[in-house]
């Protein structure tokens, strides 16, 4: 009788543990996956791990500043990536670059940055807190080599993160990168500079973000007659979490990274009203 009770208690404990593990798996995360907090309350509270999961693949999309759910003249309401207006140009990727630099600045260890385009201006990364000595660049001749170089880097446990600038990321490639990232615990970021034609493909990435610039708040005294153009304050971004395992899509307005890679918390707003509408069509 006593033995049976003991057995029951043991069974309950195992079941409880299994339920916890399954619950965590359902949320799309390994139970012990470490995460990098954004240190911005609204974003961290929204993400299932309380931050960006480390040792996984994350997509970061650049996007133009055009309003995403704008009515087009012909009446069709194109939403999502198709309407990004992005042509893979430098203007679309600048905000996403700084967003990523801020994340990397708060990791410790060397970073491998694989790229083909030559427009990355590295002094700006230092301004987001990413020490230039921590970044090793791998410049490829072809874009297809970027993903291969990324995979090579992800197998090296000494790195903190691997970044790749690509125009598109397919399902197979993203699965390979995700597996490589999991195996050594190195975090992978793809910085996507989409061409006009490419839409969002399904990928194995843990999260998909899109960073666009948003009008900044006017500085305190506003424009006067003596100087008709107001000065520039801290930039603001519209951060769209377009896809995330275990969490709904959402949009946030944040201030740009400061010198230590942290997003501005003070002005952080979460406009949940249009966010789910926005991302259901995109995903």
């Amino acid at each position: 009788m006593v033995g049976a009770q003991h057995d029951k208690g043991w069974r309950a404990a195992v079941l409880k543990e299994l339920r916890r593990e399954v619950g965590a798996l359902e949320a799309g995360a390994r139970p012990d996956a470490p995460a990098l907090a954004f240190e911005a309350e609204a974003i961290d509270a929204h993400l299932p791990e309380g931050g960006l999961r480390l040792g996984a693949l994350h997509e970061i999309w650049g996007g133009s500043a055009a309003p995403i759910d704008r009515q087009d003249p012909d009446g069709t309401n194109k939403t999502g990536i198709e309407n990004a207006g992005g042509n893979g140009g430098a203007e679309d990727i600048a905000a996403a670059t700084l967003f990523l630099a801020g994340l990397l600045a708060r990791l410790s260890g060397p970073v491998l940055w694989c790229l083909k385009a030559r427009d990355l201006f590295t002094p700006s990364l230092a301004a987001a807190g990413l020490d230039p000595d921590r970044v090793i660049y791998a410049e490829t001749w072809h874009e297809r080599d970027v993903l291969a170089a990324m995979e090579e880097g992800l197998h090296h446990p000494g790195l903190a993160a691997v970044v790749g600038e690509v125009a598109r990321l397919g399902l197979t490639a993203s699965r390979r990168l995700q597996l490589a990232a999991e195996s050594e615990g190195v975090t992978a970021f793809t910085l996507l500079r989409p061409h006009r034609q490419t839409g969002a493909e399904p990928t194995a990435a843990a999260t998909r973000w899109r960073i666009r610039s948003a009008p900044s708040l006017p500085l305190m005294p506003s424009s006067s007659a003596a100087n008709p153009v107001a000065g520039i304050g801290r930039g603001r971004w519209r951060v769209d979490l377009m896809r995330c395992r275990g969490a709904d899509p959402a949009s946030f307005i944040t201030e740009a990274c400061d010198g230590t890679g942290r997003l501005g918390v003070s002005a952080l707003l979460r406009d949940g009203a249009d966010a789910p509408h926005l991302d259901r069509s995109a995903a």
Partner: protein
Amino acid sequence: MARVVSVCLPFFATERMRLTSTDLPPETPLALTTRIGAQRLIAAVDAKALAHGLKPGMAATQAQLLLPGLTLRDYAPRADAHGLAKLAAWCLARYSPVVMPAPPDGLFLDVTGCTHLFAARTAGQSRNLDEGEDNLLADLAARLARRGLTARLALTGSVGAAHALARFAAPDCTRIAETQSLTRALAPLPVEALRLSPETTQALRRLGFERIGDLIGVKRAPITRRFGHDVFLRLDQALGLSREPLVPLIPPELVSTTLSFVEPVITAEGLAQAVERLCQDLAAALEARQHGARRLDLHVTRLDRSTSIVSVRMAKPNRAPEHMARLICEKLTGLDCGLGVEKVLLAAPFTRPLLPEQIASELCGRPKEPDLSTLVDRLANRLGAGRIYRTAPVESDWPERSVRRVAALAPKPKVETPRPENWVRAWPRPARLLADPMPVEVIALLPDYPPALFIWQGRRHRICRADGPERIFGEWWRASGEIALARDYFQVEDEAGQRFWLFREEAGGRPQRWYLHGFFA
């Protein structure tokens, strides 16, 4: 086309004698003597003795009469050959996997595919092969001069031409670019430059063939009938029309292992297996010396005796067999096995001491920096050296010039040294910079105001906020035209929140122009 360096050391015997013996004052002229029968003849002279009219072949007594302060020593041809081989081994480690000593006073280096390593690396610039070749020659000349050796160098497309130009062309350092014509460079040289026997050259001269140019385009049959095939074979070799492979030197002290196959290997997989075994043997040899390899050369000899060389470099000394094998095997894919590979030789011509290290653990203080050398090697092997880099600041206000590339594993600056202030400064720098600033149309309310509107790629950007100007002056010490240059940079934000970097250029008396140079967000 091959690229070959010929090194001619006209005073090698005497200069080597000076370097190896301590009792020879540098100011006295020196000559080396040899005995033929009962006669003592001069075998080699140095530059000072030559200037006084002394020549090899003279009787020693006559030389002493001509130049009373002359020092005489015994000629040592075997020691010279040994010294030349040592010099060749040094070139092998530094410049090229294929070096052939040409006794008594020369070396050949096959530098095909090696010269890009000497090209300057600056951000955004493509590799310039001509520049690499010039730098290689300059480096070699400077290092030989520092050793106290007089050298004449030539870099051309064939062994024969390099030999001829090093010995018979006027300047000390000659280079014939790949695009230039070898015929035009060789035509004015005397026929002696063709590496023919003295009898043949004398006979050619008697017939009126004094320059190489005289032999080009003549009827070959009568001359061949009289002198044999040698004349035109040497001519074709010099002009690069006929192949002349160099026999690579494998010095006995070189760390190397070799494998010969009973059955020739035809597939890349078979070769890869052989490489794995060679790497294990080489690692053992390196470990015995407590050295690590910085470069590996795999010499692949095919059945028809032709040789291919696969060369890999490593950022740090390394002797891990798996790592070495992986680097080499990645380069084997394009290799042509021909009829089959008979023999492979793996050599480590450039090694550095590598002592066992304590594995980082929490017990022995702080963990050390992760070792990225294997990753850097693999990426550099695949993408090319110089494409794996870090960036470092340059003291320049001009944004395009403020970044320089440094080697990926270059030592990091000490924390105490202040960072050059032009990277982390009050004025922000854009995340993306256009390589060439793009002209834009700008409307400003007053000439000195920041722009109110600009049009770029057909799109109008109405500016709501702006900061500036940040004035950057031309760097007059770089070029005379820059003294009048100035740029006024403005950081502007349009209605949508996009941030641009615009500048107004003032160049002397020309009207001001506006350009877009970068993007913040």
